[in-house]
């Protein structure tokens, strides 16, 4: 539950697990950007090899990844189909109204499919090897330069960490409220659209009022513990830059340059 936002953290001690969250975050982002530059079989091939290597280094079994992607498969197929049916150019094999299938659209469809997989794989590696808390800390580190322009980076980080800490609490409360209103005869998830939307009222009002009470009590407790503001505090948890981060960056930068050379210009 601590890893609510992005998925399911798998505890481990692999190379990837040990990297600092800030470089994992940045590298994932960087990877998505290089994908923009891939446009032929060689570039996609290179990136696929890189991602397989990353998966290997994460110590998580390929089967686990495939299981994770399974629920998304219809979505991917649907999007790929859209791509195939709606792109134009090349040798047309078949067409009907606005739809057409050509050699280019088939190839592009294939590329899109790979793109999807690449992106989902990299984000899955990130979330399987990093706790939400570490991701929040990583965000804080990445945003640190913004402090110079008086952007409240530390406040944001504290806010995010409190939010993540309270998600399971609110979730439990939601479930109790849900059950309480069910026992009072509310039918959730059935009936007319209007009925279904109005059923949100007996859920959301208690959820919100509960959250407001938490906010108030927590404020009192925080002040009693000497909290004044979030920008003047020392930090208990620190993720240091490691050799593994440096090596990973070198590999990724190299692949990035390689892609620029082997892509079709």
């Amino acid at each position, binding site marked *: 539950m601590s890893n609510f936002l992005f998925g399911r953290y798998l505890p481990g001690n692999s190379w990837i697990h040990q990297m600092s969250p800030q470089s994992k975050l940045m590298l994932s982002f960087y990877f998505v950007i290089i994908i923009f530059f891939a446009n032929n079989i060689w570039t996609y091939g290179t990136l696929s090899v890189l991602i397989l290597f990353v998966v290997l280094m994460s110590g998580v079994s390929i089967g686990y990844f495939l299981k994770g992607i399974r629920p998304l498969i219809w979505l991917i197929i649907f999007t790929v189909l859209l791509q195939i049916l709606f792109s134009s150019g090349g040798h047309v094999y078949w067409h009907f109204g606005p739809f057409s299938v050509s050699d280019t659209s088939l190839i592009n469809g294939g590329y899109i499919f790979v793109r999807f997989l690449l992106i989902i794989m990299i984000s899955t590696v990130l979330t399987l090897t990093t706790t939400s808390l570490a991701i929040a800390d990583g965000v804080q580190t990445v945003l640190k330069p913004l402090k110079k322009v008086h952007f409240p980076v530390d406040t944001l980080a504290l806010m995010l960490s409190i939010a993540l800490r309270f998600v399971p609490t609110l979730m439990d409360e939601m479930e*109790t409220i849900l059950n309480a209103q069910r026992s009072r005869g509310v039918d959730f998830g059935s009936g007319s659209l209007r009925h279904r939307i109005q059923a949100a009222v007996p859920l959301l009002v208690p959820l919100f009022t*509960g959250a407001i009470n938490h906010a108030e009590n927590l404020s009192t407790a925080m002040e009693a513990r000497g909290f004044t503001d979030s920008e003047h505090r020392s930090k208990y948890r620190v993720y240091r830059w490691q050799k593994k981060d440096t090596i990973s960056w070198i590999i990724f930068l190299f692949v990035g340059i390689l892609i620029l050379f082997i892509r079709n210009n």
Partner: protein
Amino acid sequence: MDQEISFNQVTHTYQADTPFAQNALDKVSLKIAPNSFTAIIGHTGSGKSTLVQHINALLKSTFGEIEVYGRQITPSTTNKNLKQLRKHVGMVFQFPEKQLFEESVIKDIMFGPKNYGASDADAEKSAVKAMKLVGLDASLRDQSPFDLSGGQMRRVAIAGVLAMNPEILILDEPTAGLDPHGHKEIMDLAQGLHDHRNMTIILVTHQMDDVVDYASDVIVMDRGQVVKHGTPSQIFADPKWVYKMHLDLPSSGEFATRLIRAGVPLEKTPLTIENLADEIVHLIQGGNHTDE
């Protein structure tokens, strides 16, 4: 029709078909007699809440059947039928004041009856009755429930359940966080509903004093199973066993074990202060006899 609650080999598995699968209830069979006042006790995580949530079908069993006043619930019962059942089983959750949401006290109490198809006029009639029952002043009816004190809010929530005229009332730690005065009022209300309105009361609690003061039957849960079912005196007869279940004795029993440890030869575990006083007096006077 059979006026009782019965569980027949009921198993409930959370997260079935995953590596996290966990039996929260493990082949539970039990009967709760109509118009009984039954306490359900057991340490945290023993399955008490899961058990009571089956009685009003908030949870459905993975295996096994449940019969509540002649209505059957099986793993395949459809949701439509469940709603009808819930009308007869009122459930007061822990900190029920957290479920309030309407703009006025009366509207919040009317919410349940209206969901079950009562007309506005009928719902209001039941709501007014329920307010009286829980001791809420009629002048509060149009106030926002959020303007009331904590204790009053809790009564509004309980009234909201009673307004549905349930035959069975489940109370999950209904006095949590209340002071002694508020505690007694809520427990006396439960007793009144049992004695004068023939409701079946099912009380989930950690307070062993309430168990001996109010309940006629006790069900002890441990690791998803019913490990004992009997009268309070049967349940607390063996202090060692009670401690093994990570439970406490009622205060008098607790005090008696300390007296015994200090060398006062009490014979059996008393449940109430009156019992304890009787036993002590008996010992003192018994002593008189031998001295004479």
